[in-house]
């Protein structure tokens, strides 16, 4: 299955796929950030692949000098029962990723969570607010430079 996915994508948009890895049977494709919506639409609509379920979407802080952040999309196809992982690399200077809410509506809350936790914004997202943390919270807790103990006074708690 993984070969079919790879072959179809390479034929559709060879320049959009920056890399492919396979680990424990899971296929991971690294997609160029600008092309994510195009690739996602193709994967959803291509009849044989039909990745119609977005199971998960999350951010990762890789804490490296180049392309510090990543956004990981976990797709599933109800037809072929296959999983696929897409990955987009995000530079620290340009934390904007095109939204995939137009492709899978369910990306809405996942992208809000990624924005909340990592500060990655999704352009054209219909409702980009924090999902878990309070709206006036200034930090992004899952970044590696955010301490586990939290930052004192960063959360406005009710007075005793």
């Amino acid at each position, binding site marked *: 299955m993984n070969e079919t996915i790879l072959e179809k994508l390479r034929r559709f948009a060879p320049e959009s796929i920056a890399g492919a890895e396979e680990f424990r049977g*899971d296929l991971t494709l690294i997609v160029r950030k600008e092309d994510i919506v195009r690739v996602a639409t193709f994967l959803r609509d291509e009849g044989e692949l039909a990745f119609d*379920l*977005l199971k998960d979407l999350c951010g*990762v*802080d890789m804490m490296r000098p180049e392309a510090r952040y990543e956004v990981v999309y976990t797709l599933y196809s109800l037809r072929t029962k296959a999983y696929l992982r897409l990955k987009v690399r995000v530079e620290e200077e340009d934390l904007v990723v095109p939204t995939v809410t137009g492709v899978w509506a369910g990306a809405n809350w996942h992208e809000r969570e990624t924005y909340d936790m990592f500060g990655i914004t999704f352009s054209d997202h219909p409702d980009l607010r924090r999902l878990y943390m309070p709206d006036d919270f200034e930090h992004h807790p899952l970044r590696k430079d955010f301490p586990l103990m939290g930052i004192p006074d960063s959360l406005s708690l009710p007075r005793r």
Partner: protein
Amino acid sequence: MTTMPSKPVVESRKSKILAALEDQDTTVTIEDPLENEMILNMGPQHPATHGVLRLLIKLDGETVIAAVPEIGYLHRGYEKIAENDTYHAFIPHTDRLDYLSPLSNNVAYVLAVEKLAGIDAPPRAQYIRLLCCEMARIASHLVSVGSMAMDVGALTVLLWTFREREKLLDIYDVLCGARFTTSYARIGGLQQDWSPQCTAMLTDFLDEIGRDVDEVEKLLSTNRIFIDRCENVGYLSREDAIAWGVTGPLLRAAGVPHDLRRDNPYLVYGEMDFDVVTATESDALARFYVRIGEIRESAKILRQALGKIPEGPYNTPEAKRVLPDKESTYTKMEELIHDFMLINLGIDPPIGEVYQGIESSKGELGFTIISDGTGHPWRLKIRSPSTSNLSALPLMLKGGMISDIVAIIGSLDPVMGEADK
């Protein structure tokens, strides 16, 4: 956005109401209360929201025209904690995700770590884990069915289902020493072995559950109030369910026969004979019937698996990656050292990333783990079914009545511990 057609207001009655209000030193600024929309705040402390779910509802009369769920009141930062814990040390935290089915959360997590580390648990452990997953599903569905019935006014069912669930909790107690926060699965195996006493207790439970589920179904399916309050309520179309990433009983009630136990078998589900329960109506009532059907199917799986548990070890004999059993930890030097090293420094899986999902009672519970080769996960993402299911809640609420809200939330069966992480 749908709005109700404006209702004719009897002029004299209206002026009478206004006059009565003006009498009490009040300035009345609303010209016609029936023509106005009202914002209602429901939760986070509300008995029918099943935890700390908050809903902002825009009402036109009694009709919901828009709803915005707000979550995060139970956010404990488990993904951050996971990055700072060793792989073993995170297992107790998984109990607190979906706290109605802790046993299956443990299994989901260790399956993801085992996939990452390349460990194959022995067949006996696989069978016992399968029993755990199905017991957890029955326990969770019992709570779901009972509390949904309670939300729409049938308290008896809740008492009956909790009575049955109690028997399962007693089995958990014998199995792992805890009724609620089980932390039973271990990477590469289990905390302790399945005992003959558990087999006896589970057999007794299975002998009775069929009759009890029949009773519950009979009580509700012939209950006019229950049917009226659940039928054609909270409709979610098949297309919307797929687009919004809804999984579990909600997706199956929408006519999509997607069940990871059959579609992507993990553990030993491939050897089990069971049906995937589906419905097509996609309303609250259909979800109720799917859950009732799943309890019966789970009982079927449990009966098959009980007879098939193979003899053999319940832990992988890999001292460097799998925790030794407690008795040898306390009595033998080597095992004590391994226990210390594994808990404090962790197993070192290879660099890589995996995703492993299981069909939990609420839907697909999955873990994405990115490893940098050390004893801590570099990133651990919990794909919780309740979050995705809740994100589709506005679609189900829209156009319904205010009294439908509790029935819809009950049929969705969210657990906020899992939705908020």
